[in-house]
């Protein structure tokens, strides 16, 4: 169920260039059941920016009623958010949307997780759950450059992890798709989150033959399915009027379900 709650900042720290890790505690953690869901945050109170910001949940700790997010402080809202510190309150609406289906991984499947930039965070909780369920998980994480890399060790501790940077300053130079090709990474099921061009490339290459799940990004109003801000066409009716809402039908879709 979706809740609105003033959650308490447990900790906040900068973990890469412009990238912050924020842990909040609140009762709505009880509602967080899937990796890949997101929350909609009001940053800065009454006088902050008007709209909420959608941010993925990167890890969930039911025991402590805490959850963590990783975000880039770039615009007005996220910059303001990055100023809050332990003990402050953040107005959270969530959890929202449908996450990655862990159950789509079947016994014996080799699992590949591909993340790009601020698409990396939700893969962390996903990977924890998959590895806990006994799957072998490979991670390919793409970043702009060395300064932007985060959570490499965390992912490393869960499975093999490749880093690609666009400028070649760290890991493989190039895109995540280059890594798959160059390293001959084998997999049965792919979960991905990141910029649309990346998702599109993955869908084109693997959408037909593998199980592929993609988490989309779109500008949002309500975040709950009421305002029609975040719709996309369905793949079987690409110019018609059938649609999916990224916020409430997604953000995760099966490859081939919607038009990227």
């Amino acid at each position, binding site marked *: *169920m*979706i809740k*609105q709650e003033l959650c308490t900042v447990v900790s906040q720290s900068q973990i890469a260039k412009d990238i912050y890790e924020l842990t909040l505690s609140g009762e709505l953690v009880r509602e967080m059941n899937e990796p890949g869901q997101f929350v909609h945050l*009001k940053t800065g109170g009454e006088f902050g*920016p*008007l*709209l*909420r910001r959608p941010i993925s949940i990167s890890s969930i700790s039911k025991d402590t009623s805490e959850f963590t997010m990783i975000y880039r402080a770039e615009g007005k809202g996220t910059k303001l958010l990055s100023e809050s510190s332990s003990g402050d309150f953040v107005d959270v*609406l969530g959890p929202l949307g449908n996450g990655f289906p862990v159950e789509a991984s079947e016994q014996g499947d080799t699992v590949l997780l591909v993340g790009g930039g601020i698409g990396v965070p939700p893969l962390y909780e996903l990977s924890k759950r998959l590895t806990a369920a006994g799957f072998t998980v490979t991670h390919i994480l793409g970043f702009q450059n060395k300064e932007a890399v985060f959570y490499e060790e965390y992912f490393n501790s869960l499975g093999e992890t490749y880093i690609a940077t666009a400028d070649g300053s760290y890991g493989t130079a190039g895109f995540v798709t280059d890594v798959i090709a160059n390293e001959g990474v084998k997999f049965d099921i792919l979960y991905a989150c990141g910029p649309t061009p990346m998702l599109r490339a993955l869908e084109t290459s693997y959408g037909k033959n593998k199980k592929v799940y993609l988490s989309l990004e*779109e*500008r*949002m*109003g*309500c*975040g*709950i*399915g*009421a*305002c*029609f*801000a*975040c*719709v*996309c*066409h369905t793949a079987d009716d690409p110019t*018609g*009027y059938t*649609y999916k809402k990224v916020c*409430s039908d997604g953000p995760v879709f099966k490859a081939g379900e919607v038009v990227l």
Partner: protein
Amino acid sequence: MKSLEISLPGLFLKNPIMPASGCFGFGREYSGLYDLNQLGAIMIKATTLEPRFGNPTPRVAETTAGMLNAIGLQNPGLDRVLNEELTWLEQFDVPIIANVAGSLEEDYVEVAKEISKAKNVHALELNISCPNVKTGGIAFGTIPEVAKNLTKKVKEVSEVPVYVKLSPNVTNIVEMAKAVEDGGADGLTMINTLLGMRLDLKTAQPILANKSGGLSGPAIKPVAIRMIHDVSQHVSLPIIGMGGVQSAEDVMEYFYAGASAVAVGTANFVDPFVCPKIIEELPVLLQELGFDHISECTGRSWGKHEKLAYHRA
């Protein structure tokens, strides 16, 4: 709450607070958050004859104290609104105001005729002011004669009172209001969004795929208040006011200006519980300010102190 009950053409409202069209879908999502029976009414998303996908995304952009949208009237079309959405809404004891849109006069007339037959549709809101559709829309909302004729045609077929939604993007809003009054409108809703645009710093391109969009939110409230203040003195139609309402205090300002009820749009995105919150706070504020009944507030800014009785029939 007797102090909040308002009776308007076609509408008996237990309180004067309702979500604005397009900001609440058909109520399904918000029904998961709170009991919709608390609402005075619901203005449902614009309905067109045929289903519409609307504009490409991005469809929203943030501005200082406001937002732009260019949804482009996405909706499942008349049939599905009738058979799926309105029937679903019947479970609630809340009057529905159906927002009617179209590109051609015939479309408006057809939708109005059919949708006004629905059991729970107590009034129509004729959307002649959507800034986000390329054809039709603009002339209907900016040329008095065209607006008047459309109102007349819709009145002829509608089985419930017709409220006309005015666009703020005109030189003379009073003239528009008078025209639709002449056309037989039972009430006005105002304002729709102001035309606006935002450009991306890095790409230099509009953030919205549709380039321009409709500006809503607190930023536009003073424009709405001015227009309602002027219009309410020149027509004798009740006005449902909207534009940037976020609090019970804002609601009072709309009543003082000349509104008889208030719709809440963008604020639902900021705080999904805003409508019930306002409904809870309003009677307290009324009492603090020394009013017995909300209807005493309508038009106070220009001296209309007596209670108003709008029912014509």
